[in-house]
C-alpha cells in the first residue's frame, strides 16, 4: 500500500500492474459480482452462465451445504436450514423483525444482544456469517473468472441502511476475506453506471425497489462529480412484500388455514411467479398443490394485484416526495429517473414513477445488474486503475440523523440526515448533579424527537471526570462519520485538564474478538496458517510503506525540516530491521508507529496539492 498518492502536474505517476477489484451487489433475493475488464464493466456469471446468485445458503451438520441455486432448490424440503433473505436480519434484533412482521419466516430465531441469530443444523448462525457465506461464493466465482487474487471489493448497501446494518455488512465482507475498498449506496452505484454510460448531466432521481429494500436518491451529475443531494427509503419494504400481499389474499380467498412451513414457502414462491407473469399479461393463474392433498387454484387479474399492493406503492411515493423536499427541489427540476431493482419491472411501479416525475423513467440498463456494474466501476477506480482526468468523484450522504440522548429521553440531533460524508460534528454537554464524575452517553440514529422512537447505536460511559458543581463540566462529544458512512464517537471533559476520553465504534452483537475467532476458524478450515499469512501480509505492508515514503521524500522532501526527516528516517530503519524478524505483531507496531509519525507530512503534502489545484484553476480561468 502506497502512503499517499498525490498526482503532480507534469509528473507521471509510477505505472503499476492492473489490480483486480470487483463490485458486489449483496441483495435480499439475489447477489451479483461484476468487474471491469478491458475497460468494460460486466457481471461475472457462474459456470452455467447464470449472472444471478440467489442469496440463499443451506446448512447441514458439517457447515455450508450449498449456496445459491442449489440451496434455493432445497428451500422447500429443508426450510429451517435453508436461509433466504438474510439481508432483512442484518443489524436487527428479534423485536425489529417482529415489528416488521418478518417473524413468520420459517426459521428458529434466537435473540442475541444487538443482532438475532438463526438456529441451523450447523449451529447458531449470525446473519453476518450467512452473508459472509454468500460473499465467499461470489469471491470464488470472481477469482476463477478473473484468474487471480482480488485486491479489493466495493460492496453495495441500501442507501437507507442505518449504521448497524452497514457495520454488519462490512463485518460480513471481512469475514469472507474480502478487502473492503468502500461500502457504497445501491442507488449511487446505479447512478455511476447510468451516468458514465450516458455522459449524463443534471439532476436525476434513482428509484430502487429491490427484493427487500426501497431507496430513493436525488443526485446532481455534473462534470464528473456525482453529488447526492438527498436520500430516503425504507429498509424493510421490497418486492417480497408484494408477493406476501398476494399470498395473503390467496390464503383469505381460499379459506386456507393450518399451512405447513413447506406450504407457506410454496405459497410465496407461487405468488412471486404469478406477480412476474402479471408484468406481461393481464391475468395470471395462481396454482398450488398442497401438503395435505388440497389444491389451490385462483385467477388473479393485474387490476386486482395492483389494488392489493397499492398501499405499498404509495409508501414509496411518500418517501420519494420527502427526498425531493429534502433536496430543495420539485419534480420539474428532475431531468430523468432511473429504475433499479427487479421489482421495478411491475408496470404499476413504472406508471406511478412516470406520473410522479412527469416523464417516462429510463430503463435501458438491466435493473438487476446496474448496481453491481456501478460498484465494479467504483472498485476499479478505487483500486487505482484509472489515470488522472479519466476519473470521477462521488459525494454521498448519510440517510438518517445521528444524535445523543439528553435529559427526559429526548434525542438531540448532532449530525442531520443528508449531510455529505465524511463529516464530523461536536457538541458540548454538561453535568446534571454536583460532584458527578461519570456520564452515560447514548448514541441514537433517526428523525424522531423521542429516543425511544430512534435506533439505539451505542451506549458508553465517560468516567474519571473530577467532581465539579452541576453544569460546570464541559463534555465535548464528537461524532465522525467516515466515507463508508460508519460512525465513531469520542467524548472528552475539557475544563479539568484531566482528559477523560473514550472512543467507540458501535458494534452489533459481533465483537472484534468474535470476528477474529470466526476468521481464524475459516482459515483453519481452508488449511491455512493464519500466522504465516499475517507475517507475509505485514512484510508486504512494510515494503510498500518504505517505497511510498521514499517516493514522497523525492517529490516533497522539502516540506520537512532536517529534524523531522531524521525522526522518520529512524523509524524507517527500525521498521526495516523489525521486518527481518518473524514477529508479525512487532512489524505491525512498527508500521503503525511510522504511520502516526508520518501523518503531519501527509497533511502538508495534501495541503500543498490543494494549493496547486486551486492555483491551477485560477490560471485556467484567466486563460479562458
Amino acid at each position, binding site marked *: 500500500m502506497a502512503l499517499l*498518492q498525490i498526482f503532480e502536474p507534469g509528473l507521471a505517476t509510477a505505472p503499476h500492474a492492473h489490480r483486480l477489484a470487483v463490485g458486489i451487489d449483496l441483495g435480499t433475493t439475489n447477489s451479483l459480482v461484476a468487474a471491469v475488464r478491458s475497460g468494460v464493466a460486466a457481471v461475472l456469471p457462474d459456470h452455467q452462465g447464470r449472472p444471478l446468485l440467489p442469496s440463499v445458503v443451506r446448512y447441514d451438520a458439517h457447515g455450508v451445504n450449498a449456496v445459491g441455486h442449489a440451496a434455493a432448490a432445497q428451500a422447500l424440503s429443508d426450510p429451517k436450514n435453508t436461509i433466504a433473505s438474510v439481508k432483512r436480519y442484518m443489524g436487527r434484533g428479534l423485536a425489529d423483525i417482529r415489528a416488521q412482521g418478518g417473524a413468520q419466516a420459517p426459521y428458529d430465531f434466537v435473540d442475541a444482544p444487538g443482532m438475532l441469530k438463526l438456529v441451523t443444523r450447523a449451529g447458531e448462525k449470525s446473519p453476518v456469517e450467512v452473508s459472509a457465506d454468500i460473499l465467499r461464493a461470489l469471491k470464488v466465482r470472481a477469482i476463477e473468472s478473473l484468474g487471480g487474487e482480488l485486491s479489493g471489493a466495493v460492496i453495495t448497501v441500501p442507501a437507507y441502511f442505518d449504521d448497524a446494518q452497514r457495520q454488519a455488512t462490512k463485518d460480513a465482507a471481512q469475514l469472507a476475506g474480502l478487502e473492503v475498498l468502500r461500502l457504497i449506496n445501491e442507488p449511487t452505484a446505479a447512478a455511476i453506471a447510468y451516468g458514465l454510460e450516458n455522459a449524463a448531466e443534471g439532476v436525476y432521481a434513482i428509484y430502487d425497489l429491490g427484493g427487500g429494500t426501497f431507496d430513493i436518491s436525488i443526485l446532481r451529475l455534473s462534470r464528473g462529480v456525482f453529488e447526492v443531494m438527498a436520500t430516503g427509503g425504507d429498509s424493510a419494504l421490497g418486492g417480497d412484500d408484494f408477493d406476501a400481499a398476494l399470498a395473503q389474499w390467496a390464503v383469505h380467498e381460499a379459506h386456507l388455514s393450518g399451512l405447513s412451513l413447506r406450504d407457506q414457502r410454496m405459497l410465496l414462491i407461487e405468488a412471486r411467479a404469478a406477480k412476474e407473469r402479471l408484468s406481461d399479461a393481464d391475468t395470471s393463474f395462481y396454482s398450488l398443490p398442497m401438503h395435505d392433498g388440497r389444491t389451490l387454484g385462483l385467477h388473479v387479474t393485474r387490476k386486482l394485484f395492483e389494488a392489493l399492493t397499492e398501499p405499498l406503492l404509495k409508501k414509496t411515493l411518500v418517501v420519494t416526495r420527502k427526498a425531493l423536499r429534502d433536496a430543495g427541489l420539485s419534480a420539474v427540476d428532475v431531468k430523468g429517473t432511473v429504475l433499479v431493482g427487479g421489482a421495478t419491472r411491475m408496470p404499476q411501479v413504472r406508471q406511478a414513477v412516470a406520473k410522479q416525475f412527469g416523464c417516462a423513467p429510463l430503463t435501458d440498463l438491466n435493473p438487476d445488474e446496474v448496481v453491481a456494474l456501478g460498484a465494479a466501476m467504483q472498485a476499479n477506480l*478505487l483500486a487505482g486503475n484509472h489515470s488522472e482526468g479519466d476519473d470521477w468523484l462521488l459525494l454521498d450522504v448519510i440517510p438518517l440523523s445521528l444524535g445523543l440522548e439528553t435529559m427526559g429521553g429526548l434525542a438531540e440531533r448532532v449530525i442531520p440526515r443528508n449531510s455529505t460524508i465524511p463529516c464530523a460534528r461536536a457538541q458540548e454537554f454538561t453535568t446534571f448533579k454536583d460532584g458527578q464524575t461519570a456520564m452515560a452517553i447514548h448514541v441514537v440514529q433517526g428523525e424522531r424527537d423521542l429516543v425511544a422512537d430512534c435506533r439505539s447505536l451505542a451506549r458508553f460511559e465517560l468516567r474519571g471526570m473530577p467532581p465539579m458543581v452541576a453544569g460546570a463540566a464541559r463534555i465535548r462529544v464528537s461524532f465522525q462519520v467516515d*466515507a463508508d458512512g460508519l460512525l465513531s464517537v469520542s467524548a472528552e471533559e475539557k475544563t479539568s485538564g484531566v482528559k477523560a476520553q473514550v472512543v467507540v465504534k458501535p458494534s452489533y452483537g459481533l465483537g472484534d474478538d468474535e470476528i477474529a475467532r470466526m476468521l481464524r476458524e475459516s482459515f483453519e478450515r481452508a488449511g491455512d496458517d493464519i500466522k504465516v499469512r499475517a507475517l507475509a501480509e505485514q512484510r508486504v505492508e512494510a515494503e510498500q510503506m518504505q517505497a511510498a515514503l521514499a517516493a514522497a521524500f523525492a517529490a516533497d522532501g522539502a516540506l520537512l525540516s532536517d529534524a523531522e526527516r531524521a525522526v522518520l528516517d529512524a523509524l524507517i530503519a527500525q521498521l526495516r530491521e523489525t521486518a527481518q524478524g518473524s514477529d508479525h505483531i512487532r512489524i505491525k507496531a512498527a508500521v503503525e508507529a511510522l504511520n502516526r509519525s508520518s501523518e503531519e507530512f501527509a497533511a502538508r503534502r495534501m495541503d500543498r496539492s490543494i494549493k496547486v489545484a486551486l492555483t491551477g484553476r485560477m490560471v485556467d480561468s484567466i486563460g479562458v
Partner: protein
Amino acid sequence: MSKVFSQNFFEWFGLPLAFRVDTQMLSNAYREIQGQVHPDRHAQSGEAGKRVAMQFSTRANEAFDTLRNPLRRAIYLLELRGVDIGAESNTAMEPAFLFEQMEWREAVEDALTAKNVDELDRLLARLRADARLRYNKLGALIDTNADQAAVEAVRQLMFLEKVQSEIGDSLAALENA
C-alpha cells in the same frame, strides 16, 4: 494538523472574506479540493494517508456547508470578527417582529388543523421569499460592518428558518398520515 488547518474557510477556498459569495466559485473550489483530498482519492494510501484524507475531506464538507448556507455563513463571518450571536442568552426581539412571527405560526397551525397541504406549500413559499429579502439586507449589513444590526437580523432569520423547517415536518407528517 494545527498549522495546515489555521486558515479560515474563506481563505482555504480562495474566496474574499465577505457575505456575498460567488456560488460558482464556491462550488468550483469545493470540487477542486475534494478532488484532491476525498478518501476515494487515497484508497490505495497507507493508514496515515487515509486518516489525513478523511480529516481534510471532513473539513472541506464543513467549510462548504458553512459557506453555502447564508445563515451559517453570516454567523461564521460574525464569529470571525469576534461578534457573539448569543442565540441562547439573548432572546430579546423587536416586538413588531415577534408579532409577525405569531401571525405566521397561527397561519401554519390553522392550515395544519385543516390538513390543507396547498396552503402550507403557499405559506412556505411566502416565508422563503421573505427570508430571501432579509438575507439581502443582512448581506449589506455585514459587508458594511454594521455588526450589531447584523446580529439582530441573524437572530430573526434563525426564527424564520425554524418556522420553515417546522412547516416541512408538518408537510411530511400530513403525507404520512
